[in-house]
């Protein structure tokens, strides 16, 4: 039995369960004053919109350089992937792997994972609910780590200002990369995980409840 089936609204902010007054289909939480909804409004559309925007930004984020190094002998620009390669050394390889994961794999995996969730919810899938909610939680937790590269570039730029010998400037790719991180975080935030379970609940399939 879900709260929705009982006509109850659960407050996302304070967790209080309450029932809209007769005749009203929306209300505010009597405890914390938050406006309550049964499900996040237009959750699938919003998530999809953020994902499309993120996927569009993902291309320039990886193709355009994120940093330009200016030395006496000229200018040299690096993309994120070139940064990973440059960092690869007998001592630096663990950090190189972290950047590879955080900057290239996590953003693309996030987009693919959320698309998969969107499609399965849209199709009313009732299978693999536990795996799908776990996937959502992993995406929720690791998403922030993509910001690593933004910080790497920020502090490299801030420190290497040894004009006229050598200086580093941010390049246009950095903006698109930061946009991918923010857009995918917003996509996760606008996705309502309860939608994963709604088809199973409405088809009145009794979940196998295991009490630990």
């Amino acid at each position: 039995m879900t709260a929705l089936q009982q006509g109850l609204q659960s407050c996302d902010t304070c967790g209080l369960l309450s029932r809209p007054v007769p005749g009203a289909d929306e209300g505010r939480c009597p405890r914390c004053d938050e406006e309550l909804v049964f499900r996040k409004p237009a959750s699938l559309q919003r998530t999809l919109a953020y994902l499309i925007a993120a996927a569009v930004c993902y291309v320039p984020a990886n193709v355009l350089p994120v940093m330009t190094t200016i030395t006496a002998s000229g200018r040299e620009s690096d993309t994120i992937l070139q940064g990973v390669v440059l960092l690869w050394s007998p001592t630096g390889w663990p950090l190189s792997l972290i950047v590879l994961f955080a900057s290239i794999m996590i953003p693309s995996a996030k987009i693919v994972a959320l698309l998969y969730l969107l499609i399965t919810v849209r199709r009313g899938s009732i299978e693999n609910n536990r795996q799908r909610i776990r996937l959502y939680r992993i995406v929720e937790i690791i998403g922030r780590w993509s910001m690593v590269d933004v910080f790497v570039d920020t502090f490299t730029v801030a420190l290497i200002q040894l004009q006229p010998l050598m200086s580093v400037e941010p390049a246009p790719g950095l903006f698109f990369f930061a946009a991918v991180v923010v857009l995918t975080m917003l996509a996760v935030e606008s996705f309502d995980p309860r939608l994963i379970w709604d088809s199973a609940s409405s088809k009145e399939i009794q979940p196998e409840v295991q009490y630990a």
Partner: protein
Amino acid sequence: MLRIASLNRGENELARRMGAKQDLIMHNQPLADASLVACPHCDLLQRLPEIAPGASARCPRCDKELWRRREDSLNRTLALALAALFLFVIANTVPMLGLTAVGHAASTTVVGGAQQLWHDGQEIVAVLVLFAAVVSPGLQIGLMLAIVVAARRERPPAWVGMLLRHLPFARNWSMIEVMLIGVLVALTKIADYATVIPGVALFALFALVFLLAAMQSSFDPREVWNRVRWADEEARHPEAGRQMTEVTL
């Protein structure tokens, strides 16, 4: 319709005149049984058991942790938040990284990093860095301090709830641990060209990562929500003649 009459009429009239739609949406009726909750991840209705301090309750269907009861939550969180505030101030006032190369010396603070980006024409990214590395952690610590100090009262005022509402947002965008890894990577890169000197702020940030995590995990929001003054204070007292809603599982 009966309920609107019981709202403060003056306030309601004011809201109507100002056209504030939000203030005209009515408050829901609370449940008579306060131990009933719905899982935020799968909406399953269930009863929260009474659990011992340190124990946690999980949703039987999707395994989401619904509540972890903390021992002495307010005192411990206050102590950790004060320590975090102290380190936060240090971390943002003294240099974080220094560098010497062929007679040049340079150093930067966290804010300095954002400033240089702004200066180089990446204003939006600069704002994002400042937001994730300084503003959000500051907000997270500040909100937490205000909440735990005010929640020590017998009946915490309703604004504690307002602050508590924004805590998850601040926490979600506070990325000091991510920044620290970023700084490490930058250090390794720069070490090829120059001698890098880690500043005091770097160590403060390192400690702050652990303090913030400890502060968040010692805090039990349910304890505060259970005692806070309600937005619709009359609704929690059934004897006032207001309807409470019954549910049978």
